[in-house]
């Protein structure tokens, strides 16, 4: 019997859960290196990869029950020791996976910034691509599973890997590539907010049908360590049964709990330096840890007036060397609650600072830290107000943050908004993925949705060139929104051609709010709501039938695979050949 493995490949933490046809989804502890030469289980695998030199960490300290001495570590010890070796630590690989300003298959991590890039040769040390790093996390989960379950090897099971709903087709494709690199030949992708919703369904059993009614709209509000993700799921009536449809997906927002912990640490750190004390890198790390706990206490259900912070001195002498400060309830309220979750109007939009001319390459963090403004814009864009909210992500453990979002939703909607109590906020996505595996085999209700966006390719109009003006570009809809897995659309009629022997390159766009564009619709590329993605390209080689320079008339086909990725195909009109357009992952201006 095939087992289902649900893998939450998170920005800061990964988790794995399992189920079978008859066994409910449950989380699986992950064996990992937790200290030098210490191996233990933890509920999650921190998504950190440490690539130390032998001087920094002896390989014997990194061995696992299924390996000999290793030159790298992932998980808890990688994160802890990596704080002292930031130049050897890969973190947030998932955010790099969807960052078009770098080549995501190039070995650029640990990221050292533009200036340090020049010193790369001198510094040495192993570096990996965002795809490699993701593959290491998946490979670790696979090896840990296989070690504990030798009779049920992971790659022979039904494996689901979750991705942010906002992941574009390239990032999804790269996730599948990483899974393959990790030895999972066949995986299926599932959107994280949907997984969180499945975890709710699994936890409730049939009782959810009493909690939700046709016409209800559920906001899945997922605030993780590094990213924030919103989705809307609508409850509909299908022949007397309740049906679920994912109707909207938000943008990829690089903003999460880590930013909040850093904000509190900056405040506490300033209090410490104002008192004439300084903190080194390790003490800074300890400070962030304590600030995270202080945040959870001060924004929890019954907040204390203040939380004491004490950082021990670095030497072996402790007494008298501790650095003390405290964070108050007022500070947490004004900097975290009002800073990241301010009370705003329903028509608020995030502030967009113009990118500076010489911005250093790095992760495109959200400019506006106000999660509630991002939320207002998301709901405003789709013109739908939720009737219920389901929280996910570790940040949302803080009761006051949940309460603030509910308060705002109620004010914006002008009516009550219910809170759906889901599963464990840290493990819900993995649990939901494991539950979805059961749903796919016909047990339980499935969320319909298909592709979250409509996709377009850019077609230059054949206007005569005017000096100084780029020829206007039209966007041809190749895949309408809501295309289900396993379905294919053919474009009715168009005049596209590939030039033999040359790299044909098409601009590629997505739109989240153009539900009604059918395949073949032609709109202006500067239409509002259209976002440019990485281009797609194909080189058709000259062969016996075709000579370089020939123009091959083709028609386009879009195919959403069972895996959950989008493929674009060019089919020769003369029937002699078909070519898959490849996503270009090279860095883009």
């Amino acid at each position, binding site marked *: 019997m095939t087992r289902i493995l649900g893998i939450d490949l998170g920005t800061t933490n990964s988790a794995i859960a399992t189920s079978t046809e008859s066994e409910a989804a449950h989380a699986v502890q992950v064996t990992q290196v*937790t*200290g*030098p*030469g*210490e*191996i*233990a*289980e933890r509920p999650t695998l921190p998504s950190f990869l440490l690539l130390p030199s032998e001087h920094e960490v002896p390989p*014997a*300290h990194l*061995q696992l*029950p299924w390996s000999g*001495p290793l030159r790298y570590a992932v998980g808890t010890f990688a994160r802890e020791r990596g704080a002292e070796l930031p130049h050897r630590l890969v973190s947030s690989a998932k955010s790099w996976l969807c960052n078009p300003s770098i080549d995501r298959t190039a070995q650029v991590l640990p990221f050292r910034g533009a200036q340090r890039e020049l010193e790369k040769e001198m510094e040495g040390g192993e570096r990996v691509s965002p795809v490699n790093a993701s593959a290491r996390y998946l490979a670790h989960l696979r090896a840990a599973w296989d070690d504990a379950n030798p009779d049920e090897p992971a790659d022979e099971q039904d494996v689901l890997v979750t991705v942010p709903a906002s992941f574009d087709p390239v990032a999804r494709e790269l996730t599948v590539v990483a899974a393959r690199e990790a030895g999972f030949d066949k995986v299926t992708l599932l959107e994280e907010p949907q997984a969180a919703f499945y975890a709710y369904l699994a936890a409730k059993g049939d009782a959810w049908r009493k909690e939700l009614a046709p016409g209800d709209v559920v906001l899945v509000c997922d605030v993780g360590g590094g990213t924030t993700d919103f989705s809307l799921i609508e409850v509909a009536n299908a022949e007397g049964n309740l049906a679920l449809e994912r109707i909207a997906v938000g943008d990829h927002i690089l903003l999460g709990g880590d930013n909040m912990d850093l904000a509190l640490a900056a405040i506490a750190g300033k209090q410490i330096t104002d008192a004439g004390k300084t903190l*080194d890198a390790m003490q800074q790390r300890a400070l962030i840890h304590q600030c995270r706990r202080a945040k959870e206490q001060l924004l929890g259900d019954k907040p204390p007036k203040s939380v*004491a912070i*004490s*950082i*021990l001195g*670095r030497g*072996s*002498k*402790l*007494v*008298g*060397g*501790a650095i*003390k400060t405290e964070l108050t309830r007022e500070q947490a309220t004004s900097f975290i609650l009002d800073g990241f979750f301010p009370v705003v109007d329903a028509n608020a939009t995030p502030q967009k600072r113009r990118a500076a001319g010489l911005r250093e390459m790095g992760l495109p963090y959200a400019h506006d830290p106000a999660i509630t403004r991002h939320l207002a814009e998301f709901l405003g864009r789709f013109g739908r107000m939720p009737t219920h909210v389901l929280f996910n992500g570790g940040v949302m453990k803080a009761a006051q943050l949940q309460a603030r979002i509910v308060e705002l939703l109620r004010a914006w909607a002008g009516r009550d908004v219910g809170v759906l109590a889901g599963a464990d906020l840290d493990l819900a996505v993995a649990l939901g993925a494991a539950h979805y595996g059961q749903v796919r085999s016909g047990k339980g209700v499935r969320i319909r949705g298909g592709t979250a966006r409509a996709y377009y390719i850019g077609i230059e109009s054949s206007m005569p060139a005017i000096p100084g003006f780029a020829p206007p570009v039209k966007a041809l809809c190749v895949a309408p929104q809501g295309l289900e897995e396993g379905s294919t659309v053919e474009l009715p009629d168009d005049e596209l051609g590939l030039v033999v022997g040359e790299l044909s390159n098409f601009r590629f766009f997505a739109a989240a709010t153009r539900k009604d564009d059918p395949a073949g619709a032609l709109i202006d590329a500067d239409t509002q709501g259209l976002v440019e993605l990485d281009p797609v390209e194909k080189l058709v080689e000259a062969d016996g039938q075709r000579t370089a320079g020939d123009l091959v008339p083709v028609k386009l086909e879009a195919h959403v695979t069972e895996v959950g990725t989008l493929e674009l195909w060019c089919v020769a009109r003369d029937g002699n050949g078909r070519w898959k357009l490849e996503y270009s992952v090279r860095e883009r201006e």
Partner: protein
Amino acid sequence: MSRFVLAWVCFFRILFGKKLPTEAARFLPEGEPPKQLPEKVIEKPVEKPQPPKVSVAQHHKEGALALLALLQREGRFIDFVRDPGMLDASTTDADIGAAVRAVHRGCLKVIEQYLSLEPVMPQDEEAKVSVPKGFDPSEIRLIGEAKGEAPFKGTLRHKGWRVVEAKLPTLAEGVDRMVIAPAEVELSA
């Protein structure tokens, strides 16, 4: 191996997730001989060659050292108990308090991570309790003279601690456990 030594060996092997020595088989409940053990081992435990004593002692030592390393890393336990400031009369309670808070947090984290504990007796301390007939003297320590037969009446002074589950880390080979905390050198830029 004497029963006392065997009991200790078993204790630490179970604590650190290792297999029990084969000699322990004779203490298993009757009727359920472990399948993987050949019959003769159970019948003639005396003839089984003794495992070298040094490896047993070594194993137990490594586990204890690893636990100390954990308490030191997370809670600076050794730094704290060895701190001369603790013996210095001029050290203020406020300074000790600030250090203790952090030491306590770290040590508690280790204990909670790897051990689950419960009191041996659930009653409140200072409550009047009765020690039933057939009690285990290793679980309940009687203070004062026990007259006649159990049950005994008395006052619960300490409720005791029992480890319900110990899931200590597995220890990799080839790591010098005598180094509880490495020296730390911050490199100059």
